[in-house]
């Protein structure tokens, strides 16, 4: 009972933080609310059992992204970081709730969470769960999938991060320094 109340409260906080992020008038406040939104999202991931994803969300979304936004905002004048929001167009006000209702309607057809007969749980997950220790001799299935079965993915991911760093240095750092 308490557990269900906790989850409902968590989802309510998540939705509140997400709406407040783009309803607030100042960009600085928006950045901080976005960081708290990432924390709530990390709690949701942890509730769903995806601890690795929760860890990354907390560290990247709430930690590094907030710092990057803040450092960018330090360089802008106060008049640029205060927003004047025009009233939303009528099509958006009417269309977005309709889209939400449509998505909720479609979500009815999804498999229930944690159903052992759902396609994601019968297609390839059992193979990983049953054979990964014999194949890779690593006790943690997540590590064996990430670094062993899909080592190339991780390698290319690292290349992407490296490229992003090089591109940022080229764009932002002035020549001769």
């Amino acid at each position, binding site marked *: 009972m308490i557990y269900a109340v906790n989850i409902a409260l968590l989802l309510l906080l998540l939705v509140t933080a997400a709406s407040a992020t783009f309803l607030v008038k100042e960009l600085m406040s928006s950045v901080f609310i976005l960081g708290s939104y990432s924390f709530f999202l990390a709690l949701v991931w942890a509730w769903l059992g995806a601890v*690795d994803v929760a860890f*990354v969300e907390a560290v990247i979304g709430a930690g*590094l992204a907030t710092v990057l936004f803040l*450092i960018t905002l330090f360089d802008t004048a106060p008049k640029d970081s205060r927003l004047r929001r025009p009233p939303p167009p009528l099509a958006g006000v009417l269309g977005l709730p309709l889209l939400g209702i449509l998505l909720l309607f479609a979500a009815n057809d999804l498999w229930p969470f944690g159903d052992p007969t759902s396609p994601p749980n019968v297609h390839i997950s059992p193979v990983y769960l049953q054979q990964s220790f014999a194949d890779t001799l690593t006790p943690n299935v997540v590590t064996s999938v990430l*670094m*062993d079965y899909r080592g190339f993915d991780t390698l290319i991911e690292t290349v992407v991060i490296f490229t992003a760093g090089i591109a940022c*240095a080229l*764009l*932002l750092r002035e020549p001769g*320094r």
Partner: protein
Amino acid sequence: MKQMHDSLIVQTMSQLLIPLAQLFSLYVLFFGQYGPGGGFVAGVIWTTSMILTFLVFGLKSPQGRLVEKMLHGDGVGLIIFVGVGGLCLVGGGEFLNYANLGIPGLGAPAQRYMGILISQIGVAVDVAVTGISIVLSLAYHDTEQEYDV
């Protein structure tokens, strides 16, 4: 940001917190094989400790100099990762098949353990250097000539 923070409380607490963050980052890196975490998260936690360092102590202090020195490691992490794959090729297996790493005196589980650990270290170094590089470029791209590499 450009010089040392003038509050003694902030300095003392940072001296306490920065080594803790770095210790936690190393724990996540080396324990990531068995628990949640891994090279990516460890690199980002290390980056945040470095950001705190140069926000509090400034880039002119010895600690800030250390942060600047880390920028020279750009690409080292990628070389470590690809090097592990290359060693596996040399050992007679496929690229990134850690069983063929060829470290003498280790059994197959230990070979795989070392292979994954070294490539995680590569990922961590790459992510940490990239994060610090992006933050420093963002923080020091204005006209003040404080920042020289």
